[in-house]
């Protein structure tokens, strides 16, 4: 995660340093300029009413209770020129192709380790490497079918990959819902210019899931496996099932029979399931293979998967590459498997597992963003120049206790987008999470989820911690 020292140093996505509109955002900025603040606020209020009425929510936890909250949305979109986007799209596909080859290699010959490109000790220490997956052969050699890579733009305009989410990345439903709302808010702008549609995602997802069905199954039954209504992303699980006509199942709805096939319990008896889009973490998937206390999974699921009777997306074990330590090797991974230079750069990353890099991190902690290698949701994250001395010391103690679990990166100057804050338009920091599908073919969403930190100067974009969201427009500029 990055941070802006002064707003003047940040790259604004809509407005150039000299105050002129960026070409792709010109029509939007003209419209914004023509609107009184009161009108703009009125549109914002209507958008929020729509969100409430459509029941677009996410769940947060408070006092041990899941509470349904209205999805936070800012009407001013983030705009990216189509010409730039095409490059990002190619870069993401390249990245995921290499990452999938890396995962497949780790669970087979481990050539990359034998060739000395990826350190053997890192693999040994990986908490996400699943010995149960060694030798498994998911179709097309693809393990991470659905991924979300977080992108951030530094002060000089460079777009970096900040992290790859390969386990159960969420947020794509809000990409589609944000667009549905934003088409109402700025209907005329959609008529005036060419903004790439996002709606086909669920169809592409459906197609990808069909493409990984066990051999010989031409019309697979697809199920979305959710931990249940108390999960923070339940809305999304339900949304995706709805849009694909798939069943939305919980672990208790499924059973693995003696023929090693997976069945769901319907009112007409047991019915075979061929493809499971699981939104449950590896550790909870199958009490027989992983955590025996899990009530979210299905006993025997791994057995069925290994026998090729059911496809699971993402494949168990794919998380081995979703690790802020492995992240640091992705450029090498791309070069190793594809013999290509990475199209999208990584943020320089210090790995505390190495004593010299760890010493650097501890010495320069006030200038770095320090993050745990295996947490998501922004918990445990420390932004060096925002922290007090005692907070820094507390994190140093954490790092020294378990160095492998920590990485650090320089503080980037996260880009901003004008955002409606109490009736005024102010710059707020954003990141971007595009979603990448990998199956027989690959697909990248047109844009992705733009998350925005709503407090002035804040870099925390997670909705669980008060972040908001924006629609993302990929615009063909003339």
């Amino acid at each position: 995660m990055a941070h802006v020292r002064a707003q003047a140093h940040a790259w604004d996505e809509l407005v150039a340093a000299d105050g002129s509109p960026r070409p792709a955002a010109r029509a939007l900025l003209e419209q914004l300029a023509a609107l009184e603040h009161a009108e703009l606020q009125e549109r914002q209020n209507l958008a929020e009413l729509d969100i409430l009425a459509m029941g677009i929510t996410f769940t947060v936890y408070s006092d041990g209770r899941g509470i349904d909250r209205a999805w936070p949305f800012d009407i001013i979109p983030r705009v990216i020129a189509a010409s730039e986007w095409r490059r990002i799209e190619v870069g993401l596909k390249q990245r995921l192709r290499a990452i999938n080859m890396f995962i497949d290699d780790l669970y087979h010959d481990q050539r990359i380790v034998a060739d000395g490109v990826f350190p053997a000790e890192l693999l040994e220490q990986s908490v996400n490497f699943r010995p149960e997956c060694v030798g498994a052969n998911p179709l097309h050699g693809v393990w991470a079918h659905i991924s979300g890579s977080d992108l951030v733009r530094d002060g000089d305009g460079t777009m970096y990959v900040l992290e790859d989410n390969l386990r159960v990345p969420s947020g794509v439903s809000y990409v589609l819902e944000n667009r549905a709302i934003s088409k109402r808010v700025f209907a005329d702008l959609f008529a005036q210019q060419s903004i790439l549609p996002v709606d086909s995602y669920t169809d592409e997802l459906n197609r990808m899931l069909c493409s990984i069905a066990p051999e010989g199954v031409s019309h697979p039954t697809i199920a979305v496996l959710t931990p249940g209504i108390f999960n923070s992303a339940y809305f999304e699980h339900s949304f995706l099932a709805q849009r694909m006509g798939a069943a939305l199942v919980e672990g208790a709805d499924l059973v693995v029979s003696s023929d090693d096939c997976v069945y769901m319990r319907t009112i007409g008896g047991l019915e075979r399931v061929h493809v499971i889009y699981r939104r449950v973490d590896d550790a909870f998937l199958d009490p027989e293979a992983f955590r025996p206390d899990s009530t979210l999974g299905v006993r025997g699921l791994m057995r069925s998967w290994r026998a090729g009777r059911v496809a699971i997306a993402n494949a168990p074990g794919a998380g081995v590459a979703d690790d802020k330590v492995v992240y640091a090797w992705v450029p090498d991974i791309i070069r190793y498997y594809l013999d290509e230079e990475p199209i999208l750069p990584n943020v320089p990353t210090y790995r505390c597992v190495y004593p010299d890099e760890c010493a650097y991190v501890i010495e320069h902690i006030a200038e770095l963003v320090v993050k745990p290698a295996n947490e998501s949701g922004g918990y445990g994250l420390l932004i060096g120049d925002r922290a007090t001395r005692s907070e820094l010391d507390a994190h140093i103690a954490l790092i020294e206790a378990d160095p492998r679990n920590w990485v650090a990166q320089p503080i980037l100057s996260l880009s901003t987008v004008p955002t409606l804050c109490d009736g005024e338009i102010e710059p707020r920091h954003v990141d971007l999470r595009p979603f990448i599908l990998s199956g027989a073919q690959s697909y990248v969403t047109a844009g992705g989820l733009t998350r925005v930190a709503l407090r002035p100067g804040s870099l925390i974009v997670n909705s669980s911690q008060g972040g908001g969201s924006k629609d993302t427009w990929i615009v063909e500029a003339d």
Partner: protein
Amino acid sequence: MLLSRVADNLYWGARYLERAEDTARLVRSYTELVIDLPTSALSSWEPLLAVAGNGVMLQRLGEHHGAAGGEMSIVRFLIADLGNPGSIASSIELARENLRTTREVMPREAWQTVNDLFLYAGSNAASGVERRSRARFLGHVIGECQRLDGVLTTVMNRDEAYELWRLGQSIERADMTTRVVGVRAATLLASDGPDSKVDVHDDVQWMGLLRSVSALQMYQRVTRGPIEGSTAVDFLLFAPSFPRSVASCATRIREALSRLPQSSITLPAVDHLDAVLDDLQTRADDGAELDAAMEEVQAALVGIDDTVRDAFVRAAA
């Protein structure tokens, strides 16, 4: 392909929403009736409570609100009290909770309607207790339930999910009609006996009763004469043309179960309901007997509910 868990939630979602609508119709008609009648003729709001719930609730109400039996406390209990699981506000909340887990099988508009209703009830139920805003609140609740029905009728596949919804709705509706007949018709018929003093307001009472299941106008179109207690009861129980009559609901229940899996297991429970209704048609319209007979019908409905759960939910577990 309908998951047992989803089927259960749909069935209950339908029952809760029908309960909300029926309770709204009941309270609306009773309020109109009370406003019509001279103050001396109808002193009690308790029959309303007896229809919608039971004596245990009344006792609870007394503990919570002090003045048990007063209009405001009873109406608040039936409309807005989240501590009463059968109140309109609770029923809507429960329906929404159930539908939240069935969104993938229902048309999107259906969920939005229930969500709208939930938001509306959340901010208006309390003010709906007041006489001057009560009709508006109840009318809105009924209207939204009808909107949902329209959505399902016009944009939903005639699939298992649809049939389960109709099943839950029809069972709940039949149950409510029997309770209206059991409590209020029985009371009115008892006061009709040769020894009792003639109540000049009887026709108004019967009109109110028919209205409480929105049957008055349809009753008059069919019978084309002044209201009589026995034909009114007959209409509410047996009229094949009126969709809220118990017989109509039974037909709808049979249709739904015939189109769902395992009908050989579930249909005998409907046969039993039909037998109870047939038997009833031959009996006298005596007040005391009617109340007991309605309990038999209710027991048959519970029997269907049990059978359905056995076939669709418990068997799969």
